[in-house]
């Protein structure tokens, strides 16, 4: 297995202008059958927001990331600095069932102490297939709630679409991304 860096769609610090979305509209094609998106130091400008994604299929390029139906699972694990823990627990309010909404990758992320962030890896399988639905998996770790929790989230599922998926968007459900790095790799 080899990872090839395709692009760095996000690379900003809190000194830069925040962005509301990270839209990746090139580089996702038939060159690779597996794509990995690595999140490092993702920081929100809004308290207790959710990090999420949606896609545009090939019949909706340039669209509003609101038509592809996703069915997914979501579970999480957490530990507080005070020692309270839970999980792994399925989260019925974080999954999707044939929904065109955004799929959460983590939730209720903290940011107000300045040292909190999110990190993780999102994998998209065979986005250029015109035969199969498009599977994805995600594993993230983030500072949660009041910043004194480590929250590990696993999301997985499929985009119920046999058209190619050439575009993807990452965002917080409220507020902007004011720091962080997203790198897109092809796996071969």
């Amino acid at each position, binding site marked *: 297995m080899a990872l090839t860096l395709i692009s760095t769609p996000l690379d900003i610090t809190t000194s830069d202008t925040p962005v509301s979305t990270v839209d990746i509209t090139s580089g996702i094609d038939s060159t690779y059958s597996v794509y990995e998106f690595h999140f490092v130091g993702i920081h929100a400008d809004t308290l207790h927001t959710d990090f999420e994604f949606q896609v545009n299929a090939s019949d909706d390029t340039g669209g509003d990331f609101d038509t592809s139906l996703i069915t997914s699972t979501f579970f999480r694990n957490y530990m507080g600095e005070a*020692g309270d823990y839970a999980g792994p627990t399925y989260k019925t309010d974080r999954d999707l069932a044939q929904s065109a909404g955004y799929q959460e990758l983590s939730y209720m992320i903290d940011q107000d102490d300045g040292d909190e962030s999110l*990190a993780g890896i999102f994998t998209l399988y065979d986005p250029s297939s015109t035969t199969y639905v498009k599977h994805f998996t995600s594993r993230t770790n983030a500072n949660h709630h009041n910043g004194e929790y480590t929250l*590990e989230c696993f999301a997985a599922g499929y985009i119920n679409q046999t058209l190619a998926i050439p575009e993807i968007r990452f965002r917080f459900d409220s507020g902007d991304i004011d720091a962080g790095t997203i790198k897109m790799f092809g796996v071969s």
Partner: protein
Amino acid sequence: MGLTLISTHTASSDATLDITSGIDSTYNEYQFYFVNIHGSEDDKQFHFQVNAAGESGFNETITSTAFYAFHEESGTSFGEYTLGYRTNADQAQGTAYQPAIGYNMGYDNDQSASGILTLYDPSSTTYLKHFTSEGSVAVYNNIAANLFTAGYINTTSAIDEISFKFNSGNIDAGTIYMYGVS
């Protein structure tokens, strides 16, 4: 780029494998691949700790979670299979070594653990340092286990050293590959 092999560390009856160079701002993500880590004692855990730059003792503060799935080779002595939270492999503001890929590891000649630890942005002086790990373990009493840990090292100082060892005994064999992701 992608994955760049920075260094390879092969155990041979070592008490610890300490990596004291190569963790810096060159990469904002490091992956440690563990291949057939084998201990000298039965029912032990393989774990890690780090040093912030200029520090020593491998005792940084960690808050972490852990869960696992297991399945017995035969019988139902431990319930045959389960999925659940793994207490004692987590920490709440602890400074102990953090279990990574292996817990309750067996030391029969054919038993070992393998897996991956990812450390995010260790050179950041702004954020706490997130990590995730996943290991496949041959447990001492003939159980296959899949251990997941994640958490953060609760410091905004840069991390430049990492140490791996068992909670008792030596690392008899095994290889750790350290990669930078770029």
